[in-house]
């Protein structure tokens, strides 16, 4: 249990052969603080336990008890000193970062996404209720559309009254549920119900698309709306047949057979039904990137641009920041503090807002840049100018940081070094090239690497400015300024159907690329440090 909860942290033991100094008696205040904090942990654990017990979530409760017990044991015994310092951050890291990341990675091997969310039974129910049509003799209901949340966004519910038993029920995609506290008119229309907000005609018509799509499954069919105030219980046109493991259309006799490898019902001619279920698909999400021509071509272009963007942003900000820092690094320049203060201002402005401001400064019709220079360039409309624009924005946002850092590093380089090289006859350029730059690079390479890794996945820089566009006419998925991360985001959450499994596979690709590049770079830094240190 210990290893599972704490990972490397709680497994930490004192190095063998070297005995840890025993923990000494701490001061009184220290002990009081410790008791109060541990008491707080226990109190939080007890508070958290009640809902778990009430919902009979025994696995969650077990995890909670085990975590609390491990924490208490850790802090009440004098051993495992490093773990005492690592535990708080590690618990949060596991819960809110490692676990979600592993969960996401595991979906990379499935077809999880729109149309493949639930299990097979849910898919069958969805197919059957979607095929419901009104037949002669269908039961009719007076319908009230309601919600348990906000009228504009909350989940929709159909409130209906059984014409025979007068029982009021609330129905959603999971089925019908009886409710007792409701006010019903003579015609069977529900006008008020406890816990539900009934939508008025205006609110309902705004969401008519969702209302039409909602089908409440019942035996042998489903209840669907016809208009906003009537509903009928229709017969399913398609039904699941267990003997052939297929869906059969009762009217035409067509069949779609379940294919467990793709998680869908497939007809003999290859036609698939839209509702499928989630299945493991092995590595096909990964191989798709390489083998599918319509994906691999644009993907490669995006990858190349992604590298160009990360290198361009990092290199551009570094060169400009260093140039300005070098220019101002002289005792003879008066007002250096004023310069410094003004130059750092962009760094203090909220980046997300400034990205949006830049987006509007590049506006074709009334943007500042076209106004100022008397141009009429459609900046975000052409691949070349759009790329230039996003790089320029990054330059503006990023160079103050590089300026600050380089200034600090320059101050740390002893002036005697370059003076000595001058005496030896080196020119200004030579002394910069041979003395100052190598020393700067030793100090700044780690920062440059992390800047590269950050820019490689700089989602905001693209999403808030060009949104990945402009898009080629034949491919609305990969834009000219798309980074892998914005591309992935569109796959996962974009309008044309979510493909979480595929998106997760690409995020693993991104992870490998950035990790590899950083690892190589860090290795080289170590070598460099040994040379110059």
């Amino acid at each position: 249990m210990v290893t599972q909860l704490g990972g490397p942290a709680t497994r930490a033991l004192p190095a063998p052969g070297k005995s840890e100094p025993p923990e000494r008696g701490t001061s009184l205040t220290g002990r009081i603080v410790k008791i109060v904090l541990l008491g707080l942990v226990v109190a939080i654990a007890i508070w958290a336990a009640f809902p778990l017990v009430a919902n009979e979530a025994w696995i969650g409760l077990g995890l909670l008890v085990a975590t609390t017990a491990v924490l208490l044991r850790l802090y009440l015994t004098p051993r495992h000193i490093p773990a005492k310092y690592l535990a708080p951050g590690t618990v949060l890291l596991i819960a809110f970062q490692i676990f979600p990341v592993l969960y996401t990675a595991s979906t990379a091997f499935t077809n999880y996404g729109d149309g493949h969310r639930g299990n097979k039974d849910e898919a069958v129910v969805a197919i059957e209720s979607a095929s419901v049509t009104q037949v002669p003799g269908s039961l009719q209901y007076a319908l009230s559309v309601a919600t348990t949340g906000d009228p504009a966004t909350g989940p929709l519910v159909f409130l209906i009254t059984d014409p025979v038993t007068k029982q009021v029920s609330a129905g959603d995609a999971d089925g019908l549920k009886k409710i007792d506290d409701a006010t019903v008119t003579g015609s069977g229309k529900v006008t008020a119900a406890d816990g539900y907000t009934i939508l008025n005609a205006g609110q309902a018509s705004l969401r008519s698309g969702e209302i039409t799509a909602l089908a409440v499954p019942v035996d042998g069919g489903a209840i669907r709306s016809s208009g906003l105030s009537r509903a009928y219980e229709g017969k399913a046109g398609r039904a699941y047949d267990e003997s052939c493991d297929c869906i059969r259309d009762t009217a035409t006799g067509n069949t779609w057979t379940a294919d467990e490898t793709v998680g869908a019902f497939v007809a003999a001619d290859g036609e698939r039904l839209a509702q499928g279920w989630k299945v493991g698909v092995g590595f096909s999400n990964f191989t798709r990137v390489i083998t599918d021509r319509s994906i691999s071509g644009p993907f490669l272009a995006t990858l190349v641009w992604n590298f160009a963007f990360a290198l361009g942003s990092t290199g551009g900000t570094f060169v400009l920041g260093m140039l300005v820092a070098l220019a101002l690094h002289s005792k003879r320049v008066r007002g250096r503090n004023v310069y410094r203060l003004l130059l750092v201002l962009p760094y203090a402005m909220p980046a997300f807002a400034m990205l949006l401001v830049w987006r509007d400064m590049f506006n074709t019709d009334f943007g500042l840049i076209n106004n100022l220079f008397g141009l009429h360039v459609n900046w975000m409309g052409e691949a070349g100018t759009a790329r230039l624009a996003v790089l320029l924005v990054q330059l503006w946002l990023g160079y103050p940081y590089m300026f600050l850092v380089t200034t600090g590093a320059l101050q740390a380089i002893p002036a005697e070094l370059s003076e000595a090289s001058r005496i030896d006859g080196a020119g200004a350029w030579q002394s910069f090239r041979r003395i100052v730059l190598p020393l700067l690079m030793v100090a700044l390479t780690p920062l440059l690497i992390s800047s590269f890794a950050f820019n490689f996945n700089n989602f905001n820089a693209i999403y808030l400015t060009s949104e990945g566009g402009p898009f080629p006419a034949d491919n609305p998925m990969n834009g000219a300024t798309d980074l892998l991360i914005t591309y992935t985001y569109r796959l996962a959450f974009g309008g044309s159907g979510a493909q979480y499994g595929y998106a997760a596979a690409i995020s693993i690709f991104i992870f490998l690329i950035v990790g590899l590049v950083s690892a190589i770079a860090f290795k080289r830094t170590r070598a460099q440090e040994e040379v110059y240190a």
Partner: protein
Amino acid sequence: MKRWMKQVGWRHAVGLLAVAFSLGPILFVLSAAFNPLGTLSSSQLMPTGLSFGNFQKLLTDTDFPRWFLNSVIIAGVASVVSVFLSALAAYAFSRRRFRGRRVGLLSLLLIQMFPQFLAVVAIFLIFGTITDYWPAIGFNTWWGIILLYLGGALGVSTWLMKGFFDTVPRELDESATVDGASHVEIFFRILLPLVAPVLAVTGLLAFISTINEFVLANIFLTDSGSKTLSVGLWGLVAAEQRNTNFGIFCAGTLLTAIPTVLVFQLLQRYIVEGLTAGAVKG
């Protein structure tokens, strides 16, 4: 004169050009915020008037004051706590020798390489369950999103701090141990004050990145009253209101800069020192 130009003059020229580049967009935001018309199409680089109409609309027609409060509290608490958690871990990595130390350090770097927000689907599902069980730390709450941000407390900043801790001579702790100080006392009384610059820098960086965080907040905070500045202001210039709300948006941008500038001023004397000293060790 020619000699002055060659030795000092060009430095001023570069400096002035850089200042112009830096301040241009900020001047534009300033002009647009005070622009009486408040639209994008009527905004110029130089101020065209002095009107507080945009600020007034921002404060009365939107939930801006609430967003501001949410952002300051969330970013403030998250950055202070994450700096503290990170410092604790950095102490263990710098001063203690234990099995799994190298692996632990490397995995911290590796985890950062995974684009965390792609885990939003998982995070969404996890917090959906949490909201059902414990609404107090669920969606649309301060505590929920602070906890989520604290998941990233250990990471690059831990490395930065570990580098800084390494520069503090070990003899200091050893002599304190001889004098009878416990490891807790060494950490709080001796090391923490010495590494104050790097605490200030990582705190500032954490504050800035939390205030700017958009993707997670956008999914997590959907009630207008619980939004942060980034989510709220983004909503102001979404889609078709881009032109009309531009002045209000710029007014909001200026006000958003205030907490960052204040934190910056507060920590200024540590910042250059901390930024570079940690970098040398990596």
